[in-house]
């Protein structure tokens, strides 16, 4: 297309020959250093194809002569991190829970490790901040179904709750209506009594009748005054914390149908050192006893 060569009148520079609404593009040369950099990049890319993973194939890809793999690199990094953590993990495995909490170095490690393990294994039910939900206890507060000492917490995590394991926490809350233990009027009275423990009763006569029913049916687990029993997972029903809701309707429903929340056994999935870190972490959330 040499015949189409066009020289711009104003600058005396050859144009590319393309024209848009009368505007032509000057064909100024690329800076030489730039051009060489570009060529070097092209040469480099050819070498890169050979050395590094580059081309997708039908079911795999070209791996490159040095065998680089970001996946393998991640695995290596994880192994390195585990190796770096190994001495702390080993010390935690050998130490008692109290020792872990008493050693600032181990405590810091356990809190970080516990936070991570909690996010992976526990947050699905208990929430990212361990604030719980209806039916899933809040682990931040100072009210514990199964006890809030380090040992209590570690035991609960290791064996879980009402999951059929021999060592699991177990305490039945029967459905007093469905099991035909109480009739509906008695249940209303008991609910009134429970409300009166928190100073919320509206009908003192019903509460008094409920107190008699409570003394007969409930006190074995929930104890005198409704203070609860962590041996049986019977909650304190005189305080301000309610696992299934503290409104009259929720209390009535609980008494009528019973409650039986479950938690899996973690002892066969997590290492003892991880469970110790989790116990220390949960204990340090603010409610540990």
């Amino acid at each position, binding site marked *: 297309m040499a015949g189409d060569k066009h020289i711009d009148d104003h600058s005396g*520079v050859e144009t590319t020959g393309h024209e848009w609404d009368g505007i032509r593009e000057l064909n*100024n*040369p690329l*800076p*030489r*250093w730039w051009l060489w950099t570009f060529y070097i990049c092209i040469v480099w890319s050819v070498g890169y194809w050979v050395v590094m993973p580059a081309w997708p194939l039908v079911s795999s890809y070209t791996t490159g002569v040095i065998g680089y793999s970001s996946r393998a690199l991640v695995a290596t990094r994880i192994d390195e991190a585990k190796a770096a953590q190994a001495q702390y993990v080993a010390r935690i495995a050998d130490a008692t829970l109290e020792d872990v*909490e008493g050693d*600032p170095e181990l*405590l810091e490690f356990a809190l970080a490790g516990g936070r991570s393990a909690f996010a992976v294994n526990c947050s699905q039910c208990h*929430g*990212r*901040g*361990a*604030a719980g939900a209806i039916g899933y206890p*809040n682990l*931040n*507060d*100072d*009210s514990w179904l199964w006890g809030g000492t380090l040992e209590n917490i570690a035991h609960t995590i290791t064996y879980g709750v009402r999951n059929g394991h021999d060592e699991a926490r177990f305490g039945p809350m029967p459905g007093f209506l469905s099991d035909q233990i109480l009739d509906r009027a008695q249940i209303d009275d008991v609910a009134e009594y429970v409300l009166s423990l928190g100073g919320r009763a509206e009908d003192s006569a019903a509460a008094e009748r409920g107190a008699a029913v409570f003394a007969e049916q409930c006190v074995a687990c929930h104890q005198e005054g409704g203070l609860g029993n962590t041996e049986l997972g019977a909650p*304190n029903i005189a*305080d*301000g*914390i309610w696992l299934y809701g503290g409104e009259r309707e929720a209390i009535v429903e609980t008494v009528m149908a019973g409650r039986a929340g479950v938690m899996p056994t973690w002892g066969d999935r997590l290492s003892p050192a991880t469970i110790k870190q989790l116990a220390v972490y949960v204990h*340090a*959330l*603010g*409610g540990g006893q």
Partner: protein
Amino acid sequence: MEQIVSAQKPAPAAGADASPVQAAAGVERVDAAAVNRKETRSLYQKRIKIFSKRARGAFRKLKWAVLAMTLGVYYVAPWLRWDRGTSAPDQAILIDIPARRFYFFFIEIWPQEVYYLTGILILSGLALFLATSLFGRVWCGYTCPQTVWTDLFIFVERLIEGDRGARIRLEKAPWGAHKIALRVVKHALWIVIAVLTGGAWVFYFADAPSLLVALATLQAPAIAYIAIGVLTCTTYLLGGIAREQVCTYMCPWPRIQAAMTDVDSMIVTYRDYRGEPRGPHRKSEPWEGRGDCIDCNACVAVCPMGIDIRDGSQLECINCGLCIDACDEVMSKVGRPLKLIAYDTFANVDRRAAGQDARYSLLRTRPLIYVGLMVVVGSLMLFGLTTRSALDLNVLRDRNPLFVTLSDGAIRNGYTVKVINKQHEAREFRLDVEGLAGRRIDVVGLESEGPPVLRVKADKLAAYRVFLSAPRESLIDESVPIVFRVTDTLDGSEIVYDAVFRGPGS
């Protein structure tokens, strides 16, 4: 590869071997052409090599002095020691990347104080603007690393291959044992300089004496060798090979400088009213009716940027003043007044041409604005530096959960309290919280008896988990403003942090 420039007009014979042409009595006309002259330079022109001649004079001496000083500072600085006690390194200038600290004599900067670096960059920028508005591109001509190292490389080249004429002859000569030997020696010396340049750089990032031992015994971290390698390549390429191409084609500053200079800026100027009409001068000829310029091309021959200053102010000119030295030498030989080329302003050239007196005004609006901005930025930095506390406090409130209801109905909030101790000794701090009636403070890991005492190691940050609980009645609102106060148990210095305490609301 590169084309050797010959004079614009064909010389009688091939270049320097020809019998010297007289520009005036005792002054040879140098066969030099400005390779970067706009009229003769096509866009497709390959690079024309510049063989700058050695200049002698005041500005050349100044350039040597600046070169010695800047290189001296660069090589010596990392070896200076500064005692900071046992908990911090004793290197006066150290960029400690693993520990995330920058040490500069008595100043120690943490990563969150990187605004000091911003301030230094702003100050440097303004200082560059100020110098340019007053004296043109003196930064480029004297202190820019590109100029300093190029000067050093040309010095070595001249040492090995000789001055301009000899270097041109060598370039033209066919490859033989002599040429190969000279070239090998030159490039070897260049590479030694380049390695030393890169080698000095890494000492700013680690303890210099121990790094030197590690480098020598091949025990140093890979990044040290990589850094030295990269800087060796860049120094060799930029200082030895690319030279003025970097300034003319790669550096943005020549394009920006025009915004800083004005008619009152002192830039290297050819006083054409005095020099023109130029031409060779015979001894018998009178000086009246002609210019002082004898067209000897001395100014072109010494120019490292390949320009002819007599063509006027140009983008390539780095304001180094070597042409002034060259011209002064010639002017004194022919017995004419010095400073035919000089640092002068456009305004003064016009005034002198019109027979008026020259006026120099340093106190112009533009430089004064730059000075004013420098004073403002400098004062802010000085204020920041002098009032910089060796104690810092950060309080992060838990967002999840926002608050926790306790079994007795009280409300509890969780906080992470971070105390930063920038002193080189361990300190203890009392923690208190104000603005919350009936508050109770629990610090995880500390005994709850008495007011909590937070311990922070020397030059470290300590993070504590703090639980704050208060009776429901204390919460007059969903959010109550509170103040965390941390007090040094020994010297009583304290710092506060405004935070909030949240509850369910009324």
